[in-house]
């Protein structure tokens, strides 16, 4: 009998993902706290303003390293193709659940790939600018003009990343059966055939009548 489920993420992929996610949550909340006064109370999650200031950069470095793991695992699945660009151009069909009108999707669709590269770029920017503004260890070594640029770029990168993650989380909720891929590691055959037909063919070797 054919197995009903298809493995999408190994245990180590899932652990790597969720470790990065936990770091991200702590960083996003403490970072927003430093960004806007209405969010300052979130520093309490890390033990108050001073603790948040102390911990944020260390957690940041940990997240970067953890995300590096994800990058190594998944980058070769995320090369953009013309098909992906076409997929992105049809975002109206995407948003309205008209999947049958979209170009055939492989392991990842254009949106997922775009998000992947946005994350790679913002994580790099966040690391570099984060070191420049890191008090009390590194910031004093840089000119104030450089630090001013760094805080601005850090804030913009963080904004883009948080926006991307909001979309990422919502997409996982919206496309049913996705969260299980990252918690238990498996998706159903029908899920794979509907959302990632080319990948379905690749892993099952079966034709895929639509």
């Amino acid at each position, binding site marked *: 009998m054919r197995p*009903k489920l298809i493995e999408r993420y190994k245990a180590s992929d899932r652990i790597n993902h969720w470790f990065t996610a936990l770091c991200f949550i702590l960083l996003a909340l403490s970072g927003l*706290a*430093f*960004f*806007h*006064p*209405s*969010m*300052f109370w979130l*520093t309490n999650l890390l033990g108050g*303003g*001073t603790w*948040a*200031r*102390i911990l944020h950069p260390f957690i940041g470095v940990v997240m970067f390293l953890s995300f590096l793991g994800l990058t190594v695992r998944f980058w070769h699945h995320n090369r953009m193709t013309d098909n992906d660009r076409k997929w992105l151009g049809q975002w109206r069909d995407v*948003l*309205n*659940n008209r*999947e049958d009108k979209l170009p055939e999707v492989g392991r990842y669709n254009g949106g997922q790939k775009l998000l992947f590269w946005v994350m790679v770029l913002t994580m790099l920017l966040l690391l570099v600018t984060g070191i420049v*503004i890191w*008090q*009390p260890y590194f*910031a*004093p070594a840089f000119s*104030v*003009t450089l*630090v*001013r*640029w760094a*805080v*601005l770029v850090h*804030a*913009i990168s963080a*904004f883009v990343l*948080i*926006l991307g993650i*909001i*979309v990422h989380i*919502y997409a996982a*909720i*919206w*496309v*049913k*059966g996705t969260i299980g891929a990252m918690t238990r590691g498996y998706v*159903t*055959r*029908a*899920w794979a*055939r*509907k*959302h990632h037909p080319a990948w379905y063919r690749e892993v099952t070797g079966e034709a895929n009548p639509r």
Partner: protein
Amino acid sequence: MALQSLDIQRRSATTTQPPSVRETTKVAKLIDISKCIGCKACQAACMEWNDLRDAVGESQGVYDNPRDLTDQSWTVMRFYEVEPDGKLEWLIRKDGCMHCADPGCLKACPSPGAIVQYANGIVDFKEENCIGCGYCITGCPFNIPRISKKDSKAYKCTLCSDRVAVGLEPACVKTCPTGAIVFGSKDDMKHHAEGRIADLKERGYESAGLYDPEGVGGTHVMYVLQHADQPQLYGLPKEPTISPLVSLWKGVAKPLAMLALGVAAVGSFFHFVKVGPNEVEEEEETKA
């Protein structure tokens, strides 16, 4: 509202209006560089009143001592040997916080109440609320705040807010032996400066003038300069403003970014409400 003289008119990382029914006279310190003899009594008085004891440094072969502001040295005399009109002048400027009317440090500070501006115009750091992020340094156009290596908190001149609160002049003013530093209401200090500038002009300093830069809304520490057209001679920025990078970051970007994140989160929810989940039909599931 314990001490009327310390009514707060602006508070860092606070978006609502602080208590503002009362108005106090704006104060200012006026430093007349033409009268300064570089004795450093102001530095000593500052240390004494504020109980600060900076580490004894090393001689650098120049008069400047200490070489720079630190968490323990809130004011330092800076000595400049310049030749503006082809003749040597020894300009000595007492450096320290300018107490801007529009303080960049306060604008940049993320911690509620770590930086306040009193109704009298003094900008004060409340170290107990400081988280040590160093954002104030990016906001300051005058390179004033210093983060302590001991406790990672930011320190600077308080304009002796504790003395001013009870009707005394700042310690540096009290001690200045030549009357180069005076203190009073901002209006009175401007008036006093006018007299000094007229006197200097009479003596041949034709570009003598007051340093009260507009770009930061004016300051509550002002200088009488012999060469007001060239403040750079004294190590002062010509047209100081809060850096546009900081204005963008802690200005329009703040509400717009929060709004955009809110729209993304709420918008996602409404997308779900409108088109519903993207799910595999039961029929397909069994077929597969």
